[in-house]
């Protein structure tokens, strides 16, 4: 059976969607069969990194949750970003969230069937024969997050070196421990002082007792790309790419 990998942060804007897209692309380039689900239904966005414009997707996760389509009907092949660098047998699919205002507000108003979301994950893995299903989550603690934590083999928590992130991350770590997530990792993003990275990693590890897969600097290069592509594919020699590659490797090995 494939692995479910949730990427979460307590607060928004930490880089979840960027990290998820990069890890997914790197895993697919290594020959894995990868699916991504944008469960950040309230503020979807990862489709942007794959250059999948909302006009091009007929179905979104929302349609599946309302029984309008099968989950695989909402899965779009985004392996084009790999520009041919995908070994035979690998794949890269994305299930986007709807960008229609009415469909987002309908989820907020009416909710959705969480059981259907759960079986959607399982069906997707089975029907597309995925080795990795990456879940880009909504920040904070809510039912969807708890669901994804509860069914994950791997939980990757992204945090910035920021007091608010530190406090919030402690809560998520506690929840992950209560739900006994098998593999819990952290990734620090938007760190400022490169001289301090090793010490920062050590501090965070000894505070939370969770392995930190890497420290990524606040980077002008990432900001300039502005979610307009997959950073590690566009900048294969960049130090940030090395961190992401290492993280992908560790997640695969987990």
């Amino acid at each position: 059976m494939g692995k479910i990998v949730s990427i979460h942060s307590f607060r928004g804007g930490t880089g979840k969607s960027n990290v998820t897209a990069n890890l997914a692309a790197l895993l697919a380039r290594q020959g894995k069969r990868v699916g991504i689900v944008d469960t950040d239904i309230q503020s979807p966005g990862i489709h942007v990194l794959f250059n999948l414009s909302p006009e091009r997707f007929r179905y979104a996760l929302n349609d599946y949750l309302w029984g309008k389509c099968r989950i695989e009907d909402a899965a779009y092949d985004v392996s084009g970003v790999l520009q041919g660098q995908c070994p035979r047998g690998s794949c890269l699919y994305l299930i986007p969230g709807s960008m229609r205002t009415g469909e987002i507000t309908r989820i907020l108003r009416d909710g959705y069937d969480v059981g259907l979301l759960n079986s959607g994950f399982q069906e997707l893995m089975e029907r597309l024969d995925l080795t990795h299903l990456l879940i880009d989550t909504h920040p904070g603690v809510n039912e969807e997050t708890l669901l994804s934590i509860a069914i994950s083999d791997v939980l990757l928590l992204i945090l910035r070196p920021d007091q608010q992130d530190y406090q919030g991350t402690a809560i998520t770590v506690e929840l992950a421990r209560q739900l006994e997530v098998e593999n819990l990792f952290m990734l620090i993003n938007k760190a400022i002082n490169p001289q301090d990275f090793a010490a920062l990693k050590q501090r965070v590890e000894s505070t939370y007792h969770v392995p930190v897969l890497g420290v990524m600097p606040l980077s002008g290069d990432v900001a300039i790309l502005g979610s307009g592509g997959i950073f590690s594919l566009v900048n294969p020699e960049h130090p940030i790419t090395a961190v992401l590659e290492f993280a992908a490797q560790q997640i695969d090995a987990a």
Partner: protein
Amino acid sequence: MPPDIPTDSGFRASDLLSLPSSERRVLQWLMRQGAGSLREVADHFQLMDEDAESILLALEKQGYIFAAAGNGPKSYRPRFGSSRPAGAPSIDIWSKLTG
């Protein structure tokens, strides 16, 4: 603190936090598997049949799983709570946190 929404049947993810760990583990496993029989639960968790059965019965009584009808051994499936507005957890998860 908003009042809890009554869970007439089915569970929400946040309900997992208030279950005894033996029941929670089985329920989480069923969430991943989709369904499982007494035999499969007992084998996977290396439990005596009686113990696996009492866990399944406890979950069934709470309305968190149901036995799907059919030929052969009973197959248990998770019963998720019905559709409710997305967002806040149904229970006071903060009180479930020790840290």
